[in-house]
């Protein structure tokens, strides 16, 4: 868990992250008709559930997330999310260029729902495998008062 140290939203962050491209499925109901949004556009489903946000309280989260980032809490089977390699408890750092570490829950949902293809950067604990000793940590956040400014990869 030491790599899952909490990150305060807004602080600069350096992190090894996994790029994932998710192509959403078109939502189809039982009869095979397309499910439409309120404005008539086709609805797409990604197939996972997210939790968290800077307006949520992480101490209340049943999964025990340490910070206020957006986390994947559940992945439906046979969904676009499972096909693209997303896993539960992944922290989503970026979606299509939008920074989700400083997003509220609603904003994160909105960004995710907006486009049919998501290019995400995801932080997963333990990936990539790094040497624990002397190596660079997978996840390094710089809080405001820290003077360290080391470029680490």
């Amino acid at each position: 868990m030491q790599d899952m140290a909490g990150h305060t939203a807004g602080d600069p962050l350096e992190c090894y992250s996994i790029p994932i491209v998710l192509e959403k499925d078109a939502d189809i109901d039982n009869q095979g008709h397309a499910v439409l949004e309120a404005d008539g556009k086709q609805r797409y489903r990604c197939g996972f559930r997210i939790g968290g946000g800077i307006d949520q309280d992480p101490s209340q989260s049943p999964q025990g997330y340490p910070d206020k980032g957006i986390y994947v809490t559940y992945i439906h089977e046979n969904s676009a999310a499972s096909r693209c390699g997303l896993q539960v408890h992944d922290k989503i750092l970026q979606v299509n260029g939008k920074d989700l570490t400083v997003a509220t829950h609603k904003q994160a949902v909105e960004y995710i729902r907006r486009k049919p293809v998501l290019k995400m950067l995801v932080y997963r604990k333990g990936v990539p495998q790094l040497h624990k000793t002397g190596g660079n940590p997978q996840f390094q956040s710089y809080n405001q008062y820290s003077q360290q400014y080391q470029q680490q990869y």
Partner: protein
Amino acid sequence: MDGGESVRSGRSERSERSHRSHGSSHHPRQHHHRGSSGRPNSNHRDRRERDRDDRSVTIKTPGQGSDVEGEERIQVQVIQQDDNWGDNTTAITGNTSETGFSMEDMRKFAKEMDDNYSVGFDCARYVGTALAAVLSIFGFLSPIAMIVLPKLGIFEWKALAFGTEIDPMQCRPECEGLLISFAFKLLILLLGTIALFFRQPKATMPRVFVFRAVVLFLVFVLTFAFWLFYGVRILKARETHYYAIVQFAVYLVDGLLFIHYLAVALLEIRQLQPQFVIKIVRSPDGKSQCYNIGLLSIQRAAVWMLEQYYKDFEVYNPYLENATKKPAKLTGFKVYDVDGGPNQTNQQGRSRAVFAAAARRRDASHNDRFYEEAEYERRIRKRKARLIVAAEEAFSHIKRMQEEQGPAIPMDPQEAAQAVFPSMARALQKYLRITRQQPRYTFESVLNHLAVCIGHDISPRAFVEKYLSQGAVIMNEKDYKSMQRWVLVCDQLLTREIEHGTYFQLRQGEVSLLCTVRKIPHFSLTEEVIDPKSNKFVLRLNSETSV
């Protein structure tokens, strides 16, 4: 002469000045009078020449100068009149016609006619009840007559004894038992009828009261049939067993008791369950209310509505209509100069334009109305506050004699009221004036009410409550009469039952109540069971969203 409208004044010089006269219905005669009487008209009538000796007036048309040839000269001959009764001054009234009656006069006449009719129609009020009473007494006394007649010995029963030793006319045990039950049944019938039906009829209805007529008809038929059988079987055939006669009478009483049951069910109980809702809207001021009602005929429903109306509605105060309206500003009006003479036609043209402008101004004043009403409400509230304060202060001067320790002059409530009233008289009068209630309460009535309140330890606010609102119609002492006439208007037969969508109207004088009937819908209730096992909840501490 105008239709009783004009105020006759003595021959005065002031009458020559222009008055606000009404409409353009000027008599040519008035010109004559104006022209012929009164000397100080010269300043008004510069352009007129008058020859007073032969009483003729020459009227010149204006504007073209006095010496132009061909000017019109209207020669007007004044007929010799008796000048002693002087000039007429016309005042503004509600009458626009010079020959007709005004509406106030009509209303006065109508009221007198109504009062005159009251003597004649009072008989109608009691005819139905009298008939019902006669029939029920007839029905009640018949069984008694049936068992008493044989015993009276009128019909020489005993002469036909069969020669047995036992006198069959004597009453034996089973007969006695029957007699006792007969007596009790009659007593119960009597008590039941007295309890339910012996009362002042609360309304005289225009058409026959169908259910009561049905019940009375049944009573009559039953009694008549029984008497028929009695006459044929018992009197003619000389039935000697007294037991049989008593039993016959008991059957009659049973029949009457069942008819009584039917009467109770039809007349009293049937309308208790609410099936309709009637909404009353009062016409001049628009107040409305809804009531529940059962299944009734239209006329009975109207009676019921009137009972509720007297209790629930406020008194209609006709002066309140104009309470918020400020007096119409007539400054824009051209004041009519009755002696206008040559300018007559021009003035008429101008006045029409002035009327139209004033009408347009009135139409655009809905905003004014809003502000006037708000202003009126404020004034009422201000005076109400002053009245309550004055009343509380006045009541604080009074104390019960037992509570007072020092030397005191004992007064009874009337005197106490008179002593205390002057301090709040002015506030009360101002409040009554602004709510237009002052014709309703006299000085004595207020004092009496105050004496009653003082004598019963009523608080000042409760004393003042009587005057704060217009009050229920029935509580209005000034107009309270023990008989009230209303006119029922309906396009359906009045003895039909009310249905969904029935309209009827009740009218009395200015007040008109429009009643609309709606059926209460049939309510279809379904049950939904909450299964305790599926009634479980989880706490959602952190919101998740599915994308």
